[in-house]
Structures are given as structure tokens and as C-alpha cells.
């Protein structure tokens, strides 16, 4: 079965296209970082360009940070732009973590953008995004 046929099959299996609105995404982001304005970059995201199974998408987040007393990541937040709800997970990092790296597995309902925010100890926020194509949606099936 080629990808196009599989994607078509996945779409017909979905009862409805229930993606969260931009408002819901923005509200979820504001709930985590307040009014901080994120700076682009400083985060390496490793994701598969095409997720065969949207129910189990491996993601590695690595923030460029020495994790020293002077400069370290305090939290990492993950959001989905086109899932039924935008929240994926939030991680609070303690000082004994050797590096600001988390590997997890996420759900993606359809082709969309993964948004990752990292809050530094000085309150600043860094942002990175990754496009993920999904062969079989992982939220409603």
C-alpha cells in the first residue's frame, strides 16, 4: 500500500476532523510561559519526517544549554498544532540532569507542526518547531 492510499484510508477512518483551534494552542502556550516572547532556535528536535504510526511518534528534544548553575533549562513544553487538544507534555528539569535532553513518544492526529518551548533559568524562552507528516493518525483511531 502506498502512502497516499494509506493516508486516504486513515482519513476515512476518522469520525471527524477535530483539530484544536489556534486560540486553544495559544491559550495552552500562554498557560505555560505567560507573556514571555520566545526566541527562535537553540533547540535540536529529532523527529521522523514521516510517522508511519501517529500513535507512537518518537521525539528527542535537546536544548543547547550547559546546565550550569548560571545557565540552565528549567522546563520544556511540547505542543501539537493540529491535534484535538494542543497539550502533549511539560517537563521540569532538576539540576542533576546531565543535559537538557528528553526523549519521549507522542501522538499526532494528522500532518502538523510540533512546537517545543524551553524556559531558561533567567526566564527567557526558546522555541523550535518540526513538521511531521503522519501516515496513520494516532489520536482518534
Amino acid at each position, binding site marked *: 500500500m502506498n502512502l497516499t492510499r494509506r493516508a486516504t484510508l486513515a482519513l476515512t477512518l476518522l*469520525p471527524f476532523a*477535530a483539530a484544536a483551534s489556534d486560540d486553544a494552542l495559544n491559550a495552552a502556550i500562554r498557560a505555560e510561559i505567560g507573556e514571555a516572547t520566545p526566541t527562535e532556535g537553540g533547540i535540536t528536535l529529532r523527529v521522523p519526517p514521516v510517522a508511519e504510526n501517529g*500513535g*507512537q*511518534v518518537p521525539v528527542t528534544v535537546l536544548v543547547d544549554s550547559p546546565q550550569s548553575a548560571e545557565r540552565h533549562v528549567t522546563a520544556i513544553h*511540547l*505542543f*501539537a498544532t493540529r*491535534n*484535538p*487538544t*494542543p*497539550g*502533549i*507534555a*511539560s*517537563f*521540569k*528539569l*532538576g539540576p*542533576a*540532569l*546531565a*543535559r537538557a*535532553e*528528553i*526523549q*519521549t*513518544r*507522542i*501522538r*499526532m492526529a494528522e500532518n502538523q507542526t510540533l512546537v517545543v518551548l524551553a524556559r531558561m533559568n533567567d526566564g527567557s524562552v526558546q522555541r523550535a518547531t518540526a513538521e511531521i507528516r503522519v501516515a496513520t493518525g*494516532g*489520536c*482518534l*483511531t
Partner: protein
Amino acid sequence: MSTNLATPRIRAPRSARAGEVVEIRTLMEHPMETGLRQEGGRTIPRDMLTRMRVRLNGEALLEAEFRNGTAANPFHVFFVRIERASELEFTWTDEAGRTARATHRIALA
């Protein structure tokens, strides 16, 4: 909804040299049902883990809060610098307040 949470699985070294960075892998079997899924015209009830807390020698190391976008059977990998013989404690909590715990000791090599 099951009455008890599954037994967590931890993969980490049993010993490390002082200052060594070690990889910790955790797997918790759980359906992570969002309550949005339907099967045969019926909505599958919500059943989610809310958080995973990891402590190193009694101090907060990593705290994860899970939302709908975390996959079933949450799997996480992270890296810790071991300075002395250490104990890691892991706790998962679900929305009904049930918990599952695990510990792992790392000796100095």
C-alpha cells in the same frame, strides 16, 4: 479502567564511575485514553496518567506532566550525572490518584 497501575520498567546501569553520565530509560504500560476515541459508536472512557516524578537521592530530578498528546505506554529517556552511589525513585500518578513506584540503585564502580 484497571484497578491497579502496571509495574513500571526501568533500564539503567547498576554501576557508574564518579562523574559519569548515564542513560535512564523508563516505560510505563498504560492506555493513556483521552476520552476522545470511539469504538463501535461508544466513547472509550478517559483514563490518563497525569505525571511522572523522578527523584535522585531525594531531590527532584525530572517531573513530567502528561496531556492528551503523550502516547500510550509512556516511554522516556533522559541523562543523569552520577557523582556518588545513588538511588533513583520513580512515581507515576493517574487522574484517579493511583500511583505506581519504582526504585533503582546505582553503585559507584
